[in-house]
């Protein structure tokens, strides 16, 4: 990658001031149009959540014939366990996953990106290989494994692997970014007497804040949205995540609570959206241009 750190960040203020009015209008128009395209699902979902149940599927209009917020109450309390519980469960798993992924994957990525050891390329290839196996076929052996460990019906199978860097995606991602950090900074740190650990902790991590934020965002959102893992490993409704909760609203073969589903789906988006808004600041604020001669 580039040899500057830069993660420069706040685009020069001149970028804002310099643009002429028409250009600015054009850009915003484009962005707003794009936004509408992107917002459509949200709008639709919100509208589905407040419209009468029997209109949800037969009408394509965004505007409901009448507005009714009862789906929210029904959705929240309609299951044996209230949605608050599911939110909490999802939150616990997601946050643990974020921590696990960021910590464990960055350790492995640092080893791959910067340290020299025999067999590095081999392990790197293996690591990439784990990215390629469809999970459906390892599901059952893995289930048996966790069952024997007594972990089924706990969050351990969903969380522990993350602390063991099971997500090769993030390792690979971080490797690519770590390689963009000028090696001279490592060298400077070595001269300052740093061990590999300290370089990782004090130089690598702070300088790769944007990618760590990226990993955090993805970890959180993907875990939040994941249902297959929870579906297999969480049996007791008390341990259900949001997504499992949502899916219990609908059974395609019998009467389902579609209104509740869309109401809760909408609510479900709130935490992820907030998480995203919060962490994307790190994406943007990052670090500044380096004190380096190139």
């Amino acid at each position: 990658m580039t040899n500057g750190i830069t993660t420069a960040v706040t685009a020069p203020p001149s970028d804002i001031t310099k643009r002429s009015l028409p250009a600015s209008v054009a850009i915003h128009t484009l962005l707003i149009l794009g936004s509408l395209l992107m917002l459509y699902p949200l709008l639709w979902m919100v509208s589905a959540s407040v419209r009468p149940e029997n209109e949800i599927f037969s009408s394509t209009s965004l505007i409901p014939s009448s507005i009714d917020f009862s789906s929210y109450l029904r959705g929240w309390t309609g299951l044996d366990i209230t949605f608050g519980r599911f939110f909490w469960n999802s939150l616990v798993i997601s946050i643990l996953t974020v921590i696990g992924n960021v910590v464990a994957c960055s350790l492995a990525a640092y080893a791959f990106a910067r340290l020299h050891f025999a067999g590095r390329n081999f392990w790197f290839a293996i690591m990439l290989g784990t990215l390629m196996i469809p999970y459906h076929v390892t599901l059952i052996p893995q289930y048996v494994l966790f069952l024997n460990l007594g972990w089924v019906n706990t969050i351990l199978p969903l969380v522990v692997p993350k602390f063991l860097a099971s997500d090769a995606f993030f390792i690979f991602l971080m490797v690519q970014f770590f390689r963009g950090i000028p090696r001279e900074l490592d060298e400077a740190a070595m001269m300052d007497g740093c061990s590999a650990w300290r370089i990782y902790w004090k130089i690598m991590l702070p300088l790769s804040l944007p990618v760590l934020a990226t990993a955090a965002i993805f970890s959180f959102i993907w875990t939040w949205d994941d249902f297959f893992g929870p579906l297999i490993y969480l049996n007791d409704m008390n341990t259900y995540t949001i997504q499992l909760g949502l899916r219990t609203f609908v059974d395609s073969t019998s009467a389902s609570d579609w209104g509740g589903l869309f109401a809760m789906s909408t609510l479900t988006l709130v935490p992820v959206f907030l998480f995203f808004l919060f962490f994307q600041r790190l994406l943007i604020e990052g670090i500044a241009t380096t004190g380096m001669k190139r």
Partner: protein
Amino acid sequence: ADARLRLLWWGSQPRADRTNKVSQLYQTKNAGTSITGEFLGWGDYWPRLATQVAGRNAPDVIQMDYRYIVEYARRGALAPLESYMPSKLNLGDFDPAQIEGGSVDGHFYGVSLGANAASTVLNTTAFQEAGVDLPTQATTWEEFGKIGAEITKAGKRKGFFGFADGSGNEPLLENYLRQRGKALYTADSKIAFGAEEVSEWFDMWSKFREANACVPPDVQALYKDTIDTSPLTLGKAAADYAHSNQFVGFQAISKDKLALTNYMRIKPDSKGGHYRKPSMFFSVSSQSKVLDQAVDYVNFFVTNPDAALALDVERGIPESKAMRDVVAAKLDETGKVPLNYVSGLGDLAGKLPPPPPSGAGEGQVVLRTIAEQVAFGQLSPSDGGKQLVDEISRLLAKG
């Protein structure tokens, strides 16, 4: 004795509420037994069950579908229950045909939780708007085709057609074959129909399509075997085909008033196409460590009047006559529709077919695919018939 029972079923919250109520009742009567129930939607249910069974961690009581019971029973995942009858599992006032429905290879694996019958769901409001009379028990496919074309032609709603395209619908085809004295499969797992019957079947549907009596193929292809994707629900057609116990689900997400009727006759005097089908079973896992308790629970589930009251007809009409009577008294308007429908089938109903062979599930997929190929014009009806017979024969041979 102290026992922990695990239950697993598919369904949504209303079904769970009812089931949990039964479990409560059971627990108050059997102190020391604790019951945990897990439920999931249909789509999620099967992978989880398969995983748990494969991991030797199957729940004790498993809700089973007619389609899968053979697969699980033949592989030894389910416990044969005949030895518990009648003392521990008292199904005395069950329709014998239903006991048979829960049997595979001479062993009894599944206690039917309700009866069901294939049916046509009608949007009566749409019929009214179009000024067309509802089909009756006597209506033939030919007449139905005309009805459909009329509704389409009336054009009261945008993009609205007479009825859904049922050419790829297995129960519908089965009904058609049975009216012709054939069936889908023989008791010894062979194909029980020939190419010409299916060719004619496909041909009939092609004509409906040409006449705009049914929805065009691209609309029909939206249908994913779920209530919410039915052309009826989506407001594309005035009639679709479903199991009678799904009626409540259909009605809930439809603005219009719905009704149930039978599948059309092929000739005014043909009969015996329909049958009362177990809507779902409770089976007991062969891995269960508390077999007796599980059987006892199942017995309670289907024979206790309080339980029956709690369950209502949500899983179908109770098989036990006594329970049926208990329930019938308390049904609401919508709830009565399927009950009345099933009990009013008359000469349309025939014998329960033998349980489908393993591979039947794939057969269903093949039918759907070929029907779509015919509908989209990639295959002629006659080739479609031949291909279907070929492929299903091959599937069955493979076992």
